[in-house]
């Protein structure tokens, strides 16, 4: 009886969301998988032809896609480190007892408020005009030149913009985590003579594990999926050196009009990325401490 009741509650609590989620995400995703076996130009009224695994075979022969996947991985690793170091650092700064921390946490979060393509356009001014200006007037011309014209630096430029935006985002999640740490625990440690570093590594970090899980995952998924900044800042250039995964798919689908191949790319990348990140979530989740 009780068991039955519990199941009923479970259904009542989860089904509404699952219903919406299934219609909006799961079903389209499954349709997407089906399309990866079909040759189609993406126009509803035009012919669709079942081609088996041929789309997948073509993807693996596509050097440009492989290159794009490799760049995306490089980008993600750099972004992962930079975003989380910055986000954690900022969160520690603004939860310290400084007077300006309240203002600072709003300011650090501001980058998130500018969404989408325009962010890349604004940063373009910085990497071209501002960097040139600093280079010419202050010196250090080997750092301050137009980053967007250099294949390697153009990728760094995207990392910088992404980190600039995401640092504030992860900051507020780290803040939420930091505030879950009871003050008396910290005070007790202080009384016991634990130094700041010791308190940080022995008390704060273990208790922050849930926040780490979340932030690492969010950065990973955000970085793997990056599109807007990629398109507006570098457009994939110069010479395709920054064409990341989502953009490669977009160009396949809406540029070359090869819908099936675009979907096959998406599925392959999804499988790889999901495997990596689920392992990451699994590992960090295991380290979380139950209160």
């Amino acid at each position, binding site marked *: 009886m009780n068991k039955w009741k519990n199941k009923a509650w479970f259904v009542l609590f*989860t089904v509404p*969301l699952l219903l919406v989620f299934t219609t909006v995400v799961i079903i389209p995703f499954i349709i997407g998988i089906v399309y990866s076996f079909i040759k189609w130009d993406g126009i509803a009224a035009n012919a669709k032809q079942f081609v088996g695994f041929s789309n997948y075979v073509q993807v693996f022969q596509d050097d440009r896609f492989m290159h794009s996947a490799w760049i995306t991985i490089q980008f993600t690793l750099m972004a992962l480190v930079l975003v989380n170091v910055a986000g954690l650092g900022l969160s520690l700064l603004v939860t310290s007892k400084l007077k*300006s921390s309240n203002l*600072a946490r709003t300011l650090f*979060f501001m980058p998130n408020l500018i969404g989408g393509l325009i962010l890349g356009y604004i940063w373009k001014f910085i990497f071209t005009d501002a960097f040139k200006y600093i280079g010419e007037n202050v010196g250090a011309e080997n750092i301050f030149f137009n980053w967007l014209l250099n294949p390697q630096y153009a990728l760094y430029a995207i990392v910088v913009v992404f980190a600039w935006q995401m640092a504030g985002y992860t900051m507020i999640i780290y803040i939420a985590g930091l*505030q879950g740490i009871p003050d008396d625990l910290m005070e007790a440690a202080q009384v016991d003579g634990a130094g700041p570093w010791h308190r940080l590594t022995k008390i704060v970090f273990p208790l922050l594990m849930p926040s780490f899980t979340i932030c690492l995952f969010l950065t990973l998924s955000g970085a793997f999926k990056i599109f807007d900044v990629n398109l507006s800042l570098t457009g994939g250039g110069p010479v395709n050196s920054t064409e990341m995964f989502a953009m490669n*798919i977009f160009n396949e*689908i809406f540029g070359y009009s090869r819908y099936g191949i675009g979907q096959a790319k998406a599925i392959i990348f999804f499988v790889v990325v999901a495997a990596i990140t689920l392992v990451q979530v699994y590992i960090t989740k295991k380290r979380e401490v139950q209160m």
Partner: protein
Amino acid sequence: MNRVNKWIAEILLVALALVFLSPIYIMLVNSFKDRSELYNNALALPTSFSFTYYAQALEKMNFLTAFGNSLYVTIVSVVIVVVLASMTAWMLVRTNNRLSQVIFMVFVATMLIPFQTLMMPLMQTMGWIRTNLGIPMLNTHEGLIFMNVGFHASLAVFLYHGFMKSIPIALEEAATLDGCSKFGVFWRIVFPMLKTITITIAILDVIAMWNDYLLPSLTLSDKGLRTIPLSTFYFFGEFTIVWNLAMAGLTLTIIPVVIFYFTAQKHIIKGIAEGAVK
């Protein structure tokens, strides 16, 4: 920490924050320049601070209507996401079996799907629902809300799931013994304790939905339904941007969210104070 050090730290913090804001500076100064002034120097302060471009942007964007549309879509979506996702996450955490784990992993995994690959099948699904079930999912605010909830469900469930563990299970057990139903336990005991993360989720979702261009651009067609980001399309040509209007429009777009964030984050801090008393 002595006084001088403290002041240095304060100054450094503010300085860092200001460097952080340089792109916002670019946005602001260029909302006051005409094209030749922008061409001469994109970085300099404008020669005059006239708000004509703001007035033009307000008018072209049909700002009040767009603001109302954005407000409706965002608020309703966020409330539904928070309500449904917190309930779901709680059940998933407290019912520790294979099914819960699978559902949770599905939520997490789908966050890795790039939206560009979902958009076409999504539109077909919505079109199918309209033709076969008669529910107008497309070109209505309610349809957009429905999709917003679906797309933001994963993140919210994921975040709630992560923070649910910090809630002592003993309290819930006590309440159950007192004869509370699950519904009562959740809304009276659990949800209030999730305040910090709820506000965090609300902030993240409000911003994401308020700024979203792609999904609304696919689902809303009629002029009268446009949200704020959609109404800025006039300023974005294929090869160029009407910079002053675009920047003015952008500034107008983010002011409401800045205010919202500023108010909301105060509650996060208050939330801790309350937590400390408990």
